[in-house]
């Protein structure tokens, strides 16, 4: 008896955790909100995915079972434990109203979780059956070969992704083709069942062929002459830029706006990456630079009550950048000797100071206090004004591309290496003769430039700025991008910005839970990919003038490719 209990303790606790996860998702309101988003029309909605997902996970967890029979028993036990926990919760909120604390624990939630059945018992029974089936599917997935399992995951991801991005896909299709081609794929934002099947089948077909295709590309590129390789990479880059150029007209006004926001955050992430990613200086007050850029642009170009000069956008743009750099330099001076956590707290203080200064009555005559600055003109060249989000996208694209090039050069430079040296070990860097004070000040100052640029464009794009736009959250968001994307990795910044800023804007269901999801994502990244989604590449290949290894073999790449 005791042995039996001991053996069942693990699946029971796993099941309880899954149940608690379900309850948590339900109480935050996510389940109900997601329930309104259909994935496959008439078949599956997102709420069911998060309701039954934990049970699939329970099945997958039993992969290590010694044999199938034990595995099935464990799946059964774990799912039952999860069902009991979830069921008790449903019975509880059905009997006792806890809505004054948890506003989402409503009859509607009970109805949703009991699959819309009238009788509670029937609903609970249906939920139990569905949960057991989900657990069985999970364990089934655990039993099949990994390649097949991954293919199934990819197919599921594609179907869910297509459904979630239905608006984007519809928009693009409508721009390219006449009529309403999107109606073939979607019905009210959900995939048509036939389309879902075809998409999944396409993934299977591609995964069947992929190993062969990939092998060919990987083998052939290094075999080309260096000159040809350069041409290929140039062509790829050219095509990328071309796509970016036509993008705003493909995706329409709303998504251009989203892309413009992504671009602004990318600028900030690239800038902060100099301080945090390269030099290892934890700056939690990055919003300071953004605010300085925005307010300078606002004050000097607006034609409202705070009008001061009404200068041209293009004239003030470099001034904003210089002002942000100067602020960066000023703020660097007092904190330059601080390290790690102390630096983070001090810089966080600066971020708050700048917001309070913007709010203060003292500066109100100049920068408007809580009234903000109004009537900031859009940028213009001659008679042409960058009025729509599509137009503004190009300014932000140009700024981002310039910053990408600049920061890529910095990353490769000797200065970049010095930053990395102080990141790895500041005392040693100092001991071998690196002027750490100067090199850290330089990191703060250059890092501020990009934030100022983003702020200036932000002010002009919005036309109005208010102090509450410059909260601590901006610093946090940018820092999250860097951590999720991969510290010190430029490609990681691009991916991180798309994931953290772009995707939540597209998925309106998620927007309410944005920071909850950020938290989950941050934890997942910290545990499973500590280097970020796209870690900075190891730097040992950079040996421009390094002597070849003594008696070295000609190339290591050939052995790697054949192995």
């Amino acid at each position, binding site marked *: 008896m005791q042995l039996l209990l001991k053996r069942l303790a693990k699946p029971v606790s796993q099941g309880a955790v899954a149940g608690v996860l379900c309850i948590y998702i339900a109480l935050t309101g996510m389940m109900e909100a997601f329930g309104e988003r259909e994935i496959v029309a008439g078949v599956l909605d997102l709420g069911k995915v998060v309701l039954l997902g934990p049970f699939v996970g329970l099945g997958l967890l039993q992969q290590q079972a010694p044999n199938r029979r034990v595995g099935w028993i464990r799946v059964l036990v774990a799912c039952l434990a999860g069902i009991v926990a979830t069921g008790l919760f449903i019975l509880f909120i059905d009997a006792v109203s806890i809505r004054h604390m948890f506003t989402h624990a409503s009859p509607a939630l009970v109805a949703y979780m009991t699959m819309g059945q009238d009788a509670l018992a029937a609903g609970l029974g249906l939920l139990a059956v569905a949960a057991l089936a989900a657990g069985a599917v999970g364990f089934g997935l655990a039993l099949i070969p990994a390649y097949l399992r991954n293919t199934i995951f990819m197919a599921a991801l594609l179907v869910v992704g297509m459904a979630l991005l239905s608006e984007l896909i519809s928009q693009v299709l409508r721009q390219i083709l006449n009529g309403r081609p999107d109606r073939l794929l979607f019905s009210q934002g959900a995939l048509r069942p036939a389309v879902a099947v075809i998409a999944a089948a396409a993934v299977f077909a591609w995964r069947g062929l992929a190993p062969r295709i990939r092998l060919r590309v990987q083998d052939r590129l290094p075999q080309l002459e260096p000159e040809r390789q350069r041409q290929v990479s140039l062509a790829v880059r050219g095509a990328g830029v071309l796509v970016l150029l036509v993008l705003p007209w493909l995706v329409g006004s709303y998504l251009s706006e989203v892309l413009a926001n992504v671009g602004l955050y990318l600028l900030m992430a690239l800038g902060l990456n100099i301080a945090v990613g390269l030099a290892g200086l934890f700056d939690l007050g990055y919003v300071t630079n953004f605010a300085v850029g925005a307010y300078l642009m606002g004050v000097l170009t607006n034609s409202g009550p705070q009008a001061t000069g009404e200068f041209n956008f293009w004239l003030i743009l470099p001034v904003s950048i210089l002002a942000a750099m100067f602020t960066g330099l000023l703020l660097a001076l007092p904190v330059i000797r601080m390290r790690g956590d102390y630096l983070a707290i001090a810089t966080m203080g600066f971020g708050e100071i700048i917001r309070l200064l913007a709010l203060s009555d003292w500066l109100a005559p100049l920068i408007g206090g809580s009234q903000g600055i109004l009537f900031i003109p859009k940028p213009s060249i001659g008679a042409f004004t960058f009025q729509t989000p599509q137009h503004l996208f190009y300014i932000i694209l140009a700024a981002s591309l310039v910053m990408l090039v600049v920061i890529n050069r910095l990353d490769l430079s*000797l200065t970049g*290496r*010095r930053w*990395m*040296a102080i990141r*790895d*070990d500041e*005392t*040693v*860097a*100092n*001991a*071998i*003769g*690196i*002027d*750490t*004070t100067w090199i850290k000040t330089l990191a703060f100052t250059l890092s501020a430039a990009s934030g100022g640029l983003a702020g200036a464009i932000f002010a002009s794009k919005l036309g109005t700025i208010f102090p509450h736009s410059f909260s601590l959250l901006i610093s946090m968001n940018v820092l999250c991008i860097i951590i999720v994307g991969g510290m010190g990795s430029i490609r990681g910044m691009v991916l991180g910005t798309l994931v953290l800023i772009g995707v939540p804007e597209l998925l309106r269901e998620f927007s309410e839970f944005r920071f909850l999801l950020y938290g989950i994502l941050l934890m997942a990244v910290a545990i499973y990919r500590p280097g970020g989604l796209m870690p900075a590449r*190891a*730097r*040992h*290949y*950079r*040996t421009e*003038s*390094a*002597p070849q*290894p*003594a008696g070295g073999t000609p190339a290591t790449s050939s052995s790697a490719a054949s192995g």
Partner: protein
Amino acid sequence: MHLLELRDVRAAYGNLEALHGISLFVDEGEIVSLIGANGAGKTTTLRTICNLMSPTTGAVRFDGMDTRGAEVHELVGRGMVMVPENRGVFARMSVYENLLMGAYQRNDKDGVRADMDMVTGLFPRLGERMKQPAGLLSGGEQQMLAMGRALMTRPRLLLMDEPSMGLAPVLVDQIFEKVADISRQGTTILLVEQNARRALALANRAYVMETGRLTLEGSAANLANDPAVIEAYLGG
């Protein structure tokens, strides 16, 4: 004139005085060892010499210059460099990049390349591992890299903090041979060591340090035969 001279140097961590008046000197071309037990103040002495800490009283003179107020990197520029305790390599940078960091203050590309060849000549293992991240090197190789990186600054005085720490005896032999090689190439060396036997075998002169004070000094050969030293540091 001595290359390095400390006159009655006191240094403290907060209220806790760690050096109670140290006076020592190192002449051009010498190998001088500073031996003593854990916590005697050896590392503090080195940190004070290269200004990672400032003395509360007393003076440090390097090459005739009072080092008070000088920045650490200025002293490196004048030819004094430390090989830190526990190796201290930049783990995520390649061996090549680590060496390049040593040449931070130099503009003569040809000279840097020549010194790079000199370092790889002295430590062939580093030449073989130029492209590897320094963090993947073995302990002995990291010590060699830290020494090589310091040599890239073209020092006149090399301060070494416990180069044998945590290394296998066979590697310690190799490291001490390299120290002798470096000395033969004309670099003056101040060596801080717990491994008194080896340090005395290598050095011209030596100082013995106990709880923040120098208790004995003299030629290394004399100290190695001193009954008190034998009892306390050479294991009877």
